[in-house]
């Protein structure tokens, strides 16, 4: 092993530890690690900017950017708050029915929006509804953030790891719909059952509070109907563009950017509002990660590990899928699933290249494990951290262990259910 490889591995491991411990902002860690990879000669400008194997994955960066702009404008319409209050009124103030409706709304929304945005939209209105019902919002908030992590796994754009996987594997929006939606729908039903088991004792129904919920005027949330129509229309166009990929031959990143451009053009909002929800730090974090992992790819480290994995797996791809599913869930519960998937994606790509179509389900195992594993602990996903912060600010603190005791149950059940799905869907016939 050369000095260069040892140094690159040291940079990689050090960055992982710093990202996991959150002692230093993750974007700083990723960018410094990327710079160190350049300094030690693991990569260069050609590798960083122009290499498909070891460079920045521009498809991922620009797909995220486009969706951030679209969602940032759409959320100003108030449609999500309207839906949540409408659901609470249809449920006639019964807490568990409200929880089920909010869980379903959150899961469906997070299939199309990123999970952090989804919980930022749904958490305040949940606090309002719980305040009116005079019930603790804690079970609702925990259920919603878990639903967003489950629902986000359903589509290519629902969770950043899926975007990375899609780009590396060449998978389309429809591939995700066909392969992920069936299991996510099952998991959502099971999750609602788990909510009943876990939270039913905390959801007491007080009929005298119903009038307070029914008095809420959801129409007041829609301040700008024209903006709502325009932004929903563009979102529908963009999703249609994703679905018609095989016909129009436009990559998801291009579709999202065209949609964002169209929305900017027709809404004529000021720049401050257009770019308010673009998380530049997240985009830079992704760029830094790609450069860092790309350094290991350029030095042949990933290929060597991939070769070892190919030999270890042989043709037992079901065992590999099981290992990847549970291993990813455990890792994603402890560390950010974005760097995890950014590292694992080139490795899985090597396995799939070597194994052919029989090895393709490994991508789905990676996606399911890394997406669902985020529910395991309070720090397993960015959305969890955001919801804990909102709960704390509003006087309903959720401790790490309160979240984690529910998270471990949900993760264990949902990830375990994925195993028979993978076997029945991809391996049972062979």
């Amino acid at each position, binding site marked *: 092993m050369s000095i260069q490889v040892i140094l690159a591995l040291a940079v990689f491991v050090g960055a992982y530890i710093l990202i996991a411990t959150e002692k230093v902002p993750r974007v700083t860690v990723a960018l410094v690690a990327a710079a160190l990879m350049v300094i030690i000669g693991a990569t260069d400008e050609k590798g960083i900017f122009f290499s498909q194997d070891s460079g920045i994955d521009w498809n991922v960066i620009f797909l995220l950017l486009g969706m951030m702009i679209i969602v940032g404008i759409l959320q100003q319409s*108030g449609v999500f*708050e309207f839906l949540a*209050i409408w659901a609470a009124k249809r449920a006639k103030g019964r807490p568990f029915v409200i929880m089920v409706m909010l869980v379903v709304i959150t899961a469906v929304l997070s299939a199309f929006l990123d999970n952090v945005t989804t919980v*930022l*939209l749904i*958490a*305040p*209105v949940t*606090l*309002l509804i719980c*305040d*009116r019902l005079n019930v603790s919002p804690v079970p609702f908030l925990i259920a919603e953030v878990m639903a967003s992590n489950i629902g986000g796994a359903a589509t290519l754009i629902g969770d950043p790891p899926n975007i990375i996987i899609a780009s590396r594997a060449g998978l389309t929006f429809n591939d995700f719909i066909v392969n992920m939606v069936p299991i996510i729908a099952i998991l959502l039903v099971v999750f609602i059952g788990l909510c009943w088991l876990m939270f039913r004792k905390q959801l007491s129904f007080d009929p005298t509070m119903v009038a*307070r919920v029914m*008095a*809420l*005027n*959801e129409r*007041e*949330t829609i*301040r700008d109907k024209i903006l709502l129509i325009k932004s929903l229309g563009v979102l529908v166009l963009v999703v249609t563009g994703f679905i018609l990929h095989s016909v129009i031959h436009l990559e998801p990143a291009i579709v999202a950017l065209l949609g964002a451009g169209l929305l900017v053009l027709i809404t004529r909002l000021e720049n401050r509002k257009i770019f308010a929800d673009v998380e530049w730090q997240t985009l830079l974090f992704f760029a830094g990660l790609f450069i860092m992992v790309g350094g290991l790819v350029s030095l042949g480290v990933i290929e060597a590990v991939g070769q070892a994995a190919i030999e270890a797996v042989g043709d037992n791809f079901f065992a590999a899928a099981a290992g990847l599913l549970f291993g990813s869930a455990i890792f994603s519960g402890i560390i950010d699933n974005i760097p995890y998937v950014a590292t694992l994606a080139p490795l899985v790509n090597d396995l799939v290249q070597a194994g052919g179509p029989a090895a393709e389900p490994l991508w789905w195992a990676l996606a399911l494990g890394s997406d669902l594993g985020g529910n395991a602990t309070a720090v397993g996903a960015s959305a969890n951290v955001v919801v804990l912060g*909102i709960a704390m*600010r*509003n*006087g309903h603190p959720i401790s790490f262990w309160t979240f984690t005791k529910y998270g471990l149950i949900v993760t264990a059940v949902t990830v375990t259910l994925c195993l028979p799905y993978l076997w029945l869907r991809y391996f049972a016939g062979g």
Partner: protein
Amino acid sequence: MRASDLQSSFPMVGRDTTAVQAARIIAAQDLAGLVIADRAGAPSAVISAVDVLGLMVPGYVVDDMSLAGVLDENAAEEVWDKAGQHTIGDLLDDDGVRKYELVRVDADDTILEVAARMADARAQIALVNGPLGSPAQFVTLPVLMDSIVTFCAPADAAHADA
């Protein structure tokens, strides 16, 4: 004219002061902010009246403005009742609220020195350093402005010169 010529006492609140108590002080004396005393009773920071207002509005409405309109008048009354539960301590612990460092000036500082320090710190109030144990004295922005304009030429005269 020196800082000591402009100084006066100013209401101070502590961590335990409720949002409603703070609001009453602001409303009664037409203040733009409040000085916060530390646990020993010494002035330590300044918060704006707008942040006290934010403390009285439910967190979920601060997080999502579109929810402000969904509550009817009866519900809004309950909201204001609950506002009393929050304290200035909650405000100090909130990372999202800007706590202005207390600007300190000496009693013999000129008005220009005081004005420069307050303008630089974007402060509405400055603490005048005094002898240990003496009651805290402050220079406020309206008093400072009032003394500055006495030095300026009357508006009509300025026009005539032009």
